[in-house]
Structure formats: C-alpha cells, structure tokens
C-alpha cells in the first residue's frame, strides 16, 4: 500500500485532485482511498488530506502518519512543522514552486524532491491560480502510481481540455531536483 499526504490551501483544488487520483486508480482496477482534513472550508486556509493506493481492499480508515509521497501545493507550506512529519526514508516529495531547491530550506531528510511551477502552468493553461490539475501531471510523472491516460480522461471528465493541458505541461516540466 502506498500512503500519500497532501498539503495545500483552501481554493487550490486539493480535495478534488486527490479524488481524481482515487477515481483513476479505481478505474485501473486498483483500490484507492482519500480522507480530507480541513478545519473550516475557507479559501487560503491550510488544507491537508490522506491518500492511499493499493491492489487490494483498503480497510484502514485513519490518517496517514508515514507517507511515502508528499504533495505540496504551495511552497509557503514547507515551513510548517507538520509538513514533513513522519516522512518515510526516500519518500517522493512534489513541490509547487518557482524557486530553486537550494532556496527552499528543506529539512535534512533523505528524500527525492520534484519541483514544478504548477501555479505558473495553471495561469498559462486555465488562466486561474488553481494548481491542482498541474500537480496531478507532476504526480503521475514523479510517482508512476497512476495510469497517465486514465488520469487525463478523469481530468477531462471533471474539468476540461485546458486542465488536461495543465497536467500535460506539468508532466513534461516536472524535474527531479534532489
């Protein structure tokens, strides 16, 4: 079972993107699960959630404590202590940022860090400051946990072609930075 934690802010489409991943893995015949945790549903407030992917039924109904993948929708969240809590060794960390890896002040943990300017891509494609579908593209590329073609179908179904383009550009532009 793969356990993934999402960190974002209200209005960035965190929950929706995680649901699309679950739909994608379920369509592929696998099992997926997502539990969002938000205090109050307010634009801008920190949001997080827990995603699981497995090839058999997922029975647990609790939070993720030791994620193997981190999805960070906003580099301002990097300084929050809970962001890197319990991270598994060699975890994949995907960060939406325009900064260089050196400027991110990342903690000294063994991890594979992928960066992508998801917000920039979103502004370019959907002309809105909503990076979620771009983050999906980065997720697909960095983790190889989802079927890329099904994912694009699901994005199209949930949104539109522009969002598919958003994911596509992120898929192409995401880079392994560390």
């Amino acid at each position, binding site marked *: 079972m793969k356990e993934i934690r999402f960190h974002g802010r209200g209005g960035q489409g965190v929950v929706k993107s*995680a*649901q699309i991943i*679950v*739909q994608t*893995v*379920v369509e592929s015949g696998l*099992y*997926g*699960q*997502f*539990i*969002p*945790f938000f205090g*109050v549903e307010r634009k801008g407030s920190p949001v997080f959630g827990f995603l699981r992917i497995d090839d058999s039924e*997922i*029975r*647990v*109904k*609790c*939070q993720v*404590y030791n994620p193997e993948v981190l999805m960070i929708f906003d580099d301002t969240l990097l300084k929050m202590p809970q962001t890197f809590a319990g991270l598994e060794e060699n975890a994949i960390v995907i960060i939406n940022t325009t900064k260089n890896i050196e400027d991110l002040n990342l903690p000294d943990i063994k991890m594979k860090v992928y960066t992508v300017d998801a917000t920039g891509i979103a502004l370019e494609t959907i002309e809105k400051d909503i990076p979620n579908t771009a983050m999906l593209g980065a997720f697909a590329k960095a983790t190889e946990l989802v079927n890329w073609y099904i994912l694009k179908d699901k994005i199209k179904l949930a949104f539109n072609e522009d969002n598919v383009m958003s994911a596509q550009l992120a898929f192409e532009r995401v880079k392994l930075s560390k």
Partner: protein
Amino acid sequence: MDKNKIVAISGNKSAAIGAALSKPDLIAAYPITPQSSVVEALADMIAKGELDSNMVHVESEHSAMSVVQGATVAGGRTFTATSAQGLALMFEPYFRMSTLRLPMVMAIATREMTSPETVWSGQQDAVTVRDAGWIQMFAENNQEILDMVIQGYKLAEHKDVLLPVNVCYDGFYLSHLTERFEIPRQELADEFLESYSCNHVTLDPDKPMAVDPLTSSEILWRYRKSHLEAMQNALEVIDEVDIEFDKVFGRKYGGAIDTYKIDDAELVIVTMGATTGTARVAVDKARDMGYKIGLLKVRFLRPFPSQKIKEVLNSKKAYAVIDKSVSFGWNTGVLYNEIKSAVSDLGRAITSMPAIGGLGGADISVDMLLDCIKKLDEESKNYNGQLATYWFE
C-alpha cells in the same frame, strides 16, 4: 443490462445514492457539517431529472423531521440526513417518529456534540439518542453505507418492525472519505425493495383516523410494550434482510454483528463504525506479534444484539471496547456499558477495558489500537474485572 458501476466517491454521496436507489417520495433536510453533501447530491440528482422525489428545503432540522413525518403519514417513503446539533434540534419529532411507528431511513454523519464548539467526528450525537426508539446501525465503509440505506428501508417497513432506521457513519472519516465501492443497478434495488406506503398510521379522508389521540396510561404502556417487541423482532429481521440482500446483490454483512478472527481468540477488541476497518488491520498485526486477538464489530446499537454478543464473548478471556463517545455517568463510553450489561449474566466475570478515543475528530490509528491491545493483554493477566478507562491520546 447495465453492469453494476464501480465508483470512487464519498460516504455522503454513497448515502445519497442508497437513498435514491430506494426511490423516496420525499426528502427534507437542512445543511449541517459533515452531512450537507448528502442532500446536495440528492438535490443534484433531482435537478438533473435522475430522481423523481419531492425535495423540501426546510428552515431547520426540527422541520426536516416534521416534514418527513407528515409525508410518511400521508403515505410516502421518506429520507433525511443530519449530524450532531441538527439531531439534537430534531429530537422532539425524532422521538415521535419512532413512537408513531413510522418507517423511514435517516442517515447520520456522526459528529461530536458541542461544547466546546466542534464540527468534527465522534459518535456522541447518535449514541445519545439511542433510547429514542429508532433502529440504529453503524457502517464501516462507503459500500456498507449505501447497502444499509437500502436494507434500512426493507427493515423499517417490515410488518413485524415498522420502525424508523438510522444509518450512522463517522463524520469525515466516512462522510468525506472517497473510496472504491459498487453502485448496484436500479433493477436490483427494485427487485429487493417493494414500493411502500404506510397504511397502519395514515391521514387520509378516504380512510379517516385520529392519529395520536390523547391516550391514558392503561393503553400507553401497551404501545410501549409493542414497540419493544418490534425492536426485538427487528433482531431477527436484520438477519433475514441481510440474507435476502445477499441473494440479490451478492454481499452480506453478518446481520446485527460481525466478527473477525474471533474463533481462537482469547482477547477481543469491540468496535462500531469506521474504526472497525482500522481494527481489522490492527488485529492482523497483533496476531503477527503473537497476540491471540479477534474483533467484534457491533453493527446495530439498537436493537442491541446482546444474545449474539454474549455468545461471542462467552469463552473469551478479556475484551476492550473502543468508544467514540462518553457516558458521563459511568466514566466509560456508551458502547462499553451496553456490552458489559450483555455479558453480565454469563456467570463469570470477563476482564474488560473501556477505551475512549476519536472525540472531536481525533484519529484512531493502527498503532494506537495496537497499544490498546497490548494494554489489554498486560492488564488482563493480573486482574479479572473492569479495568481503568483507557484514553487514546
């Protein structure tokens, strides 16, 4: 013929789909976290022309329960959903729904009660109204929510029962959990669930009745006795409905309780709701670590399946009950007291540990459950009786 659809959506939507498959005539509800998306989903189906139900957008939960009460008495199948403070507000017509013996299904996305102010998960709301005469079942996952809404109508409308049913599921941990489950075809739901129109209590000029005249004690107690009998009848009907459901849909839940790795177990962990799934994994891990542990899942809190529970716990050494609520008078959780009174006449004391967690949205993880199991194992070696209440921290 269409195939059953595999989807990945939330528990609230699952409840809504279960309701829609049951073809309610009328839905009335008021928004409250974490229930709101149940009625949003139903409103959406009505707007798209997928569901032919009257939806009444009431101004409070008190009115929501009152509207469905009126509609049930007028011959309709009805549905509503609520949480916490909404349930508390509707308590007055809630009590009356069951004592008028009106069948319906209401989903409760369970939530902690204020104060302090909170909107998060817990089971305090639903368990607090356990003695208001409703049948109350607790679901473990999204599939069970959907299935139990459909089963709920079959159970509620059964001639030997005629009681309203709560399908309870943990707020956020299920209401907002997106996971894979199967949506059965409408034909299957239609095959399983006959159309229903309440006729033992009805307001109709063609069949005039005085519904609820002032009633003296000499008659009232008979109504209560009949209500209690209906509750006991429900214990059997729950099992029958589960078997019938299996025949049509190919899924069964074991009736009023379910067990996991129980046969050779010496220690038992008792759960109700979403924690059950986590506890299954904890039981697997604990067994790997050498503990002889099994799981008892309480599916129905009302009627309480005391006989079945007694049979399960009869030969066991010790049990721990995981409660997501408190019983203020007992310094334990609510489920614990129920279990303890069920086994009280076994003729021997079984070591038992009340455990309380998951209040106000708190998580109960696999590791936390493992700690609890270890504690139960240690403490039960030295003491035979009720152990100190264990708090998940």
